[in-house]
């Protein structure tokens, strides 16, 4: 629920994103995947100067949306190459603001627990797949996944998803929510007409979505 205190905290964090360039900087850090990025990469992605990029990145750190680390970057030469660079990555903290107050998270937790208790996992998987299938055909697979909250990153065998749109719930009910996720991504690929070339499968690993999308080997 977005109670008054939570509303203040949530607005403080999200208010940092009202500036268009800052929002683009946040997106650039997230799109870079799980690893941290430097201000040069963000400046390049945004087409702005390094100083301006650094200004916005530090504002995002102040708001708690990004976290800072320092590391020596490889492949640098010249003066200053040995100095650790300031790097940015997205914070794992979640912010949600609802006006008027709504509490869909608690509702989702109660529903998930009920499904688990009644053993209705398969019904949820069926519903998720049907939901996915309703996506319009012809959508590009990466755009499709991005539009549904995933962060697709190309790998040699296909696509890894570096964000789980159901993260909090998936941590509480892994078999149920990861199974729902797999069914939904499978349905999305079918609805988009991409199921001949792409296949969703479970490949659970730390720090990313449990589902990967692999290219089908065409014989």
């Amino acid at each position: 629920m977005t109670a008054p205190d939570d509303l203040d905290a949530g607005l403080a964090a999200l208010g940092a994103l009202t500036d268009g360039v800052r929002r683009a900087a946040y997106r650039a850090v997230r799109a870079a995947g799980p690893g941290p990025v430097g201000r040069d990469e963000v400046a390049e992605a945004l087409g702005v100067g390094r100083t301006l990029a650094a200004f916005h990145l530090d504002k995002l750190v102040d708001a708690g949306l990004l976290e800072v680390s320092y590391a020596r970057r490889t492949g640098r030469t010249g003066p200053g190459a040995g100095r650790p660079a300031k790097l940015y990555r997205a914070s794992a903290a979640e912010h949600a603001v609802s006006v008027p107050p709504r509490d869909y998270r608690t509702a989702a937790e109660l529903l998930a627990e009920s499904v688990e208790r009644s053993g209705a996992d398969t019904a949820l998987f069926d519903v998720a797949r049907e939901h996915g299938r309703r996506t319009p055909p012809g959508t590009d697979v990466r755009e499709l996944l991005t539009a549904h909250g995933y962060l697709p990153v190309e790998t040699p065998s296909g696509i890894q998803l570096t964000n789980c749109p159901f993260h909090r719930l998936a941590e509480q009910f892994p078999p149920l929510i990861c199974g729902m996720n797999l069914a939904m991504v499978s349905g999305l690929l079918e609805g988009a007409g991409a199921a001949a070339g792409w296949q969703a499968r479970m490949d659970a690993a730390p720090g990313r979505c449990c589902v990967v999308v692999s290219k089908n080997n065409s014989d």
Partner: protein
Amino acid sequence: MLLGMTSAFHLAQFNVARLRAPLTDPSIAEFVTGLEIINALADSAPGFVWRLAEGPDGDATAVRPLDPDVIVTLSVWDSIESLRAFSYQSAHLDYLRRRRDWFRPHDRPASLVLWWIPAGHVPTVDEACERLDLVAAGPSPEAFTFRQTFPAPELSTRH
């Protein structure tokens, strides 16, 4: 006593599940095939300490302390994180996802319990069943689940 990296306490895990059909039934075949794969995965997982294994197949399917159609898993890990990583961030998760293909929904108040044991102690099935009864009344430091965990007991005596 020398201070080392090893914790004085390990985490015990006990899980029960009611089969939809006998293990010899074709509908359960994929689970049976997966048993060997998943047990091997557990044995080589970081933080794995011990698991109950009886009989020629090296698994625990012959142990039926609660009901003839209820099979159990009893294992020991060095931390909650190790067990969580194996359970939910490995190939094991895909078998959990398919649990309703092979197992009936929970008809017991609890199907999983975690508790801390002194390192080196080998938990018994009787002890595990007692912990399962305990967690049914609600999570506590003596019996809990992943949804509400408790830290390992502090060593209260000074050496």
